[in-house]
Each structure stands twice: as C-alpha cells, then as structure tokens.
C-alpha cells in the first residue's frame, strides 16, 4: 500500500471521528435527536437545564472520551512497537493496578480534598508504579525490555492482591471501588478535561516525533542503534510520555481495556507497520471506537448506564479472536 493510500485512510478516519463527535452531540435520552444537535449552535435559546445538559455534561463527556480513546490507542501502538510484542497493552507496566490501588487508598483513607481526590491519588500511584517498574527493570544504564515486562507482570500481581485486600476491607465503600475499576465516563466534567488536556498537548507531539525511531526499532534494537538511534533515550522518553498519558486516562475514567490493545492491531492489518501512519491512524480510530462504545453505554439500557470498560472488553474480545485467526502469519 503506497503512502497516498495510507494518508487517505487517515483522512477518512479523521472524517469518521468528526462525524461521530457531531453525532454524539445529538445523543441523549436514549436516542439521537437532531434538535439537540442544532441547539448546540443556538445556546441562547435554551433553558438553564438544557444548556447544562449540552455544555456541561454532554460536551465534556464527548471530549474526554475522545481524548482517552486517543491516548490509550496511541500508547498501545507505541508500547507494542517499543517492546516488539503484539500482546502488550497500555497497562503493561502496572499502571492500571497502580491507579486502582491509588483509588482504593483514597477511598479507604477517607482523605478528602474535594473532587480531585480520587483522580489525584490514582494518578500519583499510577505514575509511581511505572517508575517502580522502570527502576526494577533497569540493569546498569540499560533497560532490557524483557526484564521490564516481567517486572510489570510481577508488580501487577502484587497490586492485584492489594486490590483484593482493599476490597475486602472496604465494607460499605466496596461499590465505589468496583465502579472505579470498571471504567466509565459517567461523571465527566470540564475539570477532568482540564486535567487531561495538558498531558495530551505535551505528550502527543513528542510521541509523534519519535515515529522514525519506532520504525527503526522494528528492525531490532541492535540494528536501530547501529543506525544512530539513541536506543536507551528513546525508551526512556517514550515510556515516560506514554505512562503520563495512560495514568492520566486511568485517573479520570478508570481502567478501560482492549482499546489500547486491539486498535493498533486493526490499523496494522489495514496500513502496515510504518509508525508514521500507524500512530496517527491509531489515534483517530481509537477515539472513534471509544466514543461509540460510550454512545452505546449510555443508550442501550437507557436510563441505566453501562460501564464502558465492560463494553469495550465484550466488543473487543471476539473481534480480537477474529483478528488472530486472520493474521496467522504472525507478527
């Protein structure tokens, strides 16, 4: 597939995203209403509650979903390229367990700093977990990636045990933990958008600028280094930036699975391994996928809201199996 075709596909993905976002503005009350959509452009004619619904509940939710979907898919693509391993997802370094432990600590300790308590705790713990794994996986000045994967797995297990313990001790607060871990955009607010946005604005360009290095990694670390790539620095920066993006996502919307794992693979099947197109394509497809998953989560059983993390896993698992069977040729 030549580059013009790939660029066309990315353009199509962007268009799909924009259309989906516009469509989602009209989704509420369990169905799509054009009137809702049009009201967005005539805010003065709305009552206070209608305005609140559109601009303070729906719009931030839409934006947050898009940001998180993009962050997770992009991080998944980058980590898969870095680790040269197709089974890697954004939580490979224990970020999700770290974030969960942070949330549990916040819940159990009863500390209250207002509404940022849970997100703040989970963000700090998620990042701390990553640093712990990176530290454990370091040997001298080098970061052998296989060791890091193992460290991530080990920490993940340990934290899972802590999580179980936390849930056991939770008592009446059990439901809070369970909801947090299911992942969802139910309480999306502009506050959450504002916390995630700076991470995004800083992180995304950095990640994109390393597309060529990631391509070089495809040939193997040794070859990449012989071509002038600063392998250790590349690993450090990419791991750090993706950790920030994923920790940020986890802290505002809990643990949402499959998006970061499956979306890059879908793109690889269509476009190939070139990160210069793989990264932006994953970015746009991921945001659309999560956006639609969220649309379903708020309309399927309206007015009951399903947790979007459950939906993505339910949708993702069979699709992933389908992909595996198709791509027997291997990575």
């Amino acid at each position, binding site marked *: 597939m030549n580059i013009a075709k790939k660029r066309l596909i990315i353009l199509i993905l962007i268009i799909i995203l924009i259309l989906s976002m516009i469509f989602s503005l009209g989704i*509420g*009350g369990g169905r799509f209403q054009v009137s809702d959509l049009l009201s967005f452009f005539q805010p003065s004619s709305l*009552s*206070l*509650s209608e*305005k*609140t*619904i559109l601009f*303070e*509940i*729906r719009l931030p939710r839409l934006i947050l979903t898009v940001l998180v979907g993009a962050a997770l898919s992009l991080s998944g693509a980058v980590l898969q390229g870095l680790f040269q391993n197709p089974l890697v997802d954004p939580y490979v370094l224990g970020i999700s367990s770290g974030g969960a432990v942070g949330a549990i600590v916040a819940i159990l300790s*009863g500390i*209250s700093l*207002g*509404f940022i308590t*849970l997100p703040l705790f989970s963000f700090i713990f998620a990042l701390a977990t990553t640093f712990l794994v990176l530290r454990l996986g370091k040997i001298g000045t080098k970061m052998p990636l296989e060791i890091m994967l193992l460290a991530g797995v080990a920490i993940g297990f340990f934290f899972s045990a802590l999580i179980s313990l936390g849930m056991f001790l939770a*008592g*009446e*607060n059990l*439901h*809070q933990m369970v*909801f*947090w871990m299911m992942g*969802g955009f*139910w*309480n999306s*607010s502009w506050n959450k958008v504002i916390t995630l946005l700076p991470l995004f604005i800083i992180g995304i360009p950095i990640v994109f600028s390393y597309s060529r290095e990631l391509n070089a990694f495809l040939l193997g670390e040794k070859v990449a280094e012989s071509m002038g790539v600063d392998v250790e620095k590349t690993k450090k920066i990419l791991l750090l930036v993706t950790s920030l993006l994923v920790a940020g996502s986890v802290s505002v919307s809990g643990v949402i699975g499959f998006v970061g794992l499956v979306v890059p693979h879908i793109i690889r099947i269509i476009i190939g391994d070139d990160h210069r197109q793989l990264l932006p394509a994953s970015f746009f497809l991921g945001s659309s996928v999560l956006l639609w998953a969220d649309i379903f989560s*708020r309309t399927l059983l*309206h*007015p*009951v*809201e*399903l*947790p979007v993390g459950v939906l993505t896993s339910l949708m993702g698992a069979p699709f992933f199996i389908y992909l595996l069977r198709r791509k027997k040729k291997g990575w």
Partner: protein
Amino acid sequence: MSKIWIISIFIIMILVISPIISYSQPLSATDATGFTLSLSQPPNRIISLSPGNTEILFALGLKDKIVGVTTYCDEPPEALEKEKIGNVTEIDLEKILTLQPDLILASSLTPEETIDRLHELNLPVFTLKSETIDQVIEDIAKVSVLSGVELSGSALVKTMKDNLKKITDLTQLIPNQQKPLVFHIIWHDPIWTAGSGTFINEFITFAGGKNVAEDIQGYSTIDFEEILRRNPSIITVIKDHGKNEENQLYQFVTTDNRLRSVTAVKNNRVYLVDSNLVSRPGPRVILALQYFAQIIHPEIFGEYQPK
C-alpha cells in the same frame, strides 16, 4: 363423697394434660426460601446474621436471648455489646457452633453458601428477605411466632400497621400533580439511585412523592443528563457513615455546577437521610417512612428533624 372424687380427678386430669398439649404444639413458620422451621420450644439462644434482624429481635423484647450478632449490628446501642460472629458476608461458622444457637436469623445479605452450610449442619436457620414494608411487617410477625412471643409481636405489628395507615391515609388523598418529584442519590461516581422494587421507592411513594427513577428496576446507575431532564424538586442524600465530616455526596449535590439548575438544589430541598435507617428491613422502616413523609410533605407531617 363419690362426686367430689370425680370432680377432683377431672380437674387433676386437665391440669396434667393441658401443659402436655400446649408443649407438644410446635412453633413453626415458613421463611423466604420456602423452608419451614419448626421449634419444639421457644429459642433461648438466638443468633442474628444482619443488623435488620438484630433490630427486630430487640424490638420484640428478645434481647436477653441474643447470643450472637454481626459487627455491623449497632442499633440499638446495646447490640454492640453482644458476641460477634463475623460481619454480614463473612460468618464464622465455628463460632456459631460453639454458641449452640437454637435459632439463627439470616437475611438477603447472607451468602447463599453460608445458608446452605448452616442447613447442612442441621442448624435452625430462618431466612428473611423482605423487599416491601408489608413484607417486613410479616417477617416480624413470623419471628415473633417462632420465638414464642406472639403477644409482643402482634402488638408491634399493630403499632407499625397503624402508623403506616396514618401516613398512607393522608398521602393517598394527594392528587398526582401535587406529588413532588423525588430523587434519591446513593453515590455520585457513577450516579447511583434506587428504582422500583426497592424500599426507597416505597418510602417515596407511600410518603406522597414520585420517584424520579421509577422506570428503572432496583438499584442502578442513571444517566447524569436524566437528573436534569427529570428535574426533581426534592433530593434525598445518603449520609456517609463515619468517614468524613463534610459529607462528600451532599457536597457534590449542593455544589456541583452542573446541578445548579435542578429545582431541588435551587430551592435548597436537599436532605440527608441515615443510610442504615433507609436500608434495613426492620422495625424502623416506619420511622424511615415518617421521615420521608416529613421531607416530602412538611406541610402535612411537620418539619424533618432527624435525631
């Protein structure tokens, strides 16, 4: 001479036979699982597996017969001094056995496997699973029969029914349009409320209100937008137990920007209700209903002033 003999023998026979007859008649009732428990004599060593059941036992005057309760049983305060057999979901079976109970009251919160195990061990376990006020009253009656305190039981049941009727008599008369929309919030992240088939729903409806979430079954999440769309005029908030001074949930409802357009928030009709009070199937359900009635129709029932 012979007549006196016949009458005395007759009297002696009655005196001897009647206790025998009364003692051989079993105390029996059928529980929520369809299991019929029969006791040959009133229990002296009762274990409660839920706070609601503990309240029932105390209310029936059986406090001295209670030998074991859960760690959550805190009402009345004397319950705190009783022997603990675990919490509501993790029950120490060995402890139960050592306490040699002759009646165990399980609830809908008790895990199935635990109840099965208790049955297997041939222990006298009676499971209460009520979902409405009427069912609670029925359960109280059953427990009083099983425990051989039918008299106090009937008295309590009558009081409860009377108080219930007092309230419903008044609220039945309220026309539909004048029934305020009430939203009961249990948690904010995600928004968790109580739909139809819950106690809360009964409280709201019997108290002359309309549950904003009545189209939802049971306890469930609800789309944030719906709260704004349905615009309740009253919001009841569960009070956090012991965790924070400033109740997080109450703060959320009263200060979050997005809720400022809701009538209940605008008119400052956001009320804290004790979470135990509104979720325990026990004798205080009527008190809970009274509170809801005061919250929803203070003009009829007076100001809501919880103790």
